[in-house]
């Protein structure tokens, strides 16, 4: 579903190299994980996939459903079905969560039945145990850290993307909320079994709830090691220094 082929990513401003000959393939219906130390470029990868203006791909290609998306705008990529729950979702003053989502859904699907929309929004808020009043507050404004993460997942449930990146979804969520949010995502994946997921995390705990097919370690701009869930536990116990640099990343097709 998503094929990242040998990309080199630099910052637009000052040409800082962040990803170097990075490759990763995620087939439809699979759940992959990227782990890696702070500042290694995990969030950058998610932003590059969404076409963020701060980064440029100077080499390589990104294919979604076999077509290059590099010349597509952020809006177009979202309409194709790509979605990132952001590590630090921004607050937007004056724009209500409900109105924002209605606009996004309208843009995607044309006409939106207001009654159905409100129902689906209320249901999603209920599933996530979000206070319904949050729907009518400015987007993420004075939401707590955990509430922001829930608001990201609420958006996902309403907009129904086909490829989902969860960038540190587990940071900011208490243990019960994490379980609940993961249950929501699992339910979504059951209903939409072709959906592929990329989880970015520092902790194996989230992987107890959302079972991954592959785990990749990002170091020095590239995937340095891939394996199954056990790899996440190895990292948890011995850190990244133990990664054998000689071992080449194998891409999982």
């Amino acid at each position, binding site marked *: 579903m998503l094929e990242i082929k040998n990309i080199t990513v630099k910052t637009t401003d000052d040409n800082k190299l962040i990803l170097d000959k990075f490759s990763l393939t995620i087939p439809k219906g699979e759940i992959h994980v990227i782990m890696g130390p702070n500042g290694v470029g995990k969030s950058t990868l998610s932003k590059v996939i969404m076409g*963020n203006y701060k980064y440029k791909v100077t080499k390589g290609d990104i294919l979604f459903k076999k077509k290059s998306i590099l010349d597509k705008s952020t809006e177009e990529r979202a309409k194709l079905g790509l979605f990132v729950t952001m590590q630090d979702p921004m607050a937007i003053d004056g724009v209500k969560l409900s109105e924002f989502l209605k606009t996004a859904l309208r843009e995607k699907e044309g006409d939106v039945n207001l009654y159905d929309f409100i129902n689906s929004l209320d249901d999603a808020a209920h599933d996530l145990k979000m206070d319904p009043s949050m729907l009518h507050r400015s987007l993420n404004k004075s939401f707590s850290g955990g509430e922001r993460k829930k608001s990201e997942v609420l958006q996902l449930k309403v907009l129904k993307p086909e490829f989902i990146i969860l960038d540190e979804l587990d940071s900011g969520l208490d243990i019960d909320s994490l379980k609940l949010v993961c249950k929501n995502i699992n339910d979504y994946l059951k209903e939409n079994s072709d959906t592929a997921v990329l989880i970015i995390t520092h902790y194996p705990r989230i992987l107890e709830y959302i079972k991954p097919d592959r785990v990749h370690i990002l170091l020095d701009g590239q995937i340095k090691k891939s394996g199954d869930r056990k790899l996440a536990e190895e990292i948890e116990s011995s850190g990244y220094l133990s990664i054998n640099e000689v071992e080449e990343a194998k891409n999982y097709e």
Partner: protein
Amino acid sequence: MNRILIDKDQFIALKKDSELTIKNDSVLTLVIEENIDLVFNIEKVKTDIYVYAVDKSLSVTINANKEKSICNFYYSNINYDDNKYQINVYHKAPKSEVNLYNHGVNVENNKLLYDVTSKVPKDNKECITNQDNRIINIKDGKSTIRPILLIDNYDISSSHSAYIGKFDDDVMFYLTSRGISVSKAYELLLKGFLVHADPEGITEFMDELSKI
């Protein structure tokens, strides 16, 4: 000068200099149709004032005459030509609170000046006076904000923020990353920036907003 007594929620289009005396808790919506001077006398406890203008210069005086009164004043303006906005707030009673939300959009390469003064004299204790002054330049308009707090007291709570600039690129990224087009994203942001209450009744202003 036009004298108007306000004793209930009202919607008024104004063409002439006016003095408005608020005699009851109320929500006041004003549409400014000429370059005029306005004086507000706050005589009651809770007043929300929404003022909308397209390409006007405006001069405002707010007299907070009532003890423990709260006045929220929202000035939303869209500008294509050079315009000036001057507002003076006088806390004439102790424990009075005035919150200003001055939000302007500069569409062309025009000049916009905000002169915003809040004044609390020595004998009026425990007043609250806040200013939120923001101007968004769509192009490269030249804008100036002069926030002035004249406070002769120690037990006053006050804050002011002044922002001149464009909509944040990261905000645009967030909105478009959900499939919203750039023009729709602008519309959402402009509405959030300029419309703080039910947009019913200000259809002309909403039309102007969607033209930006």
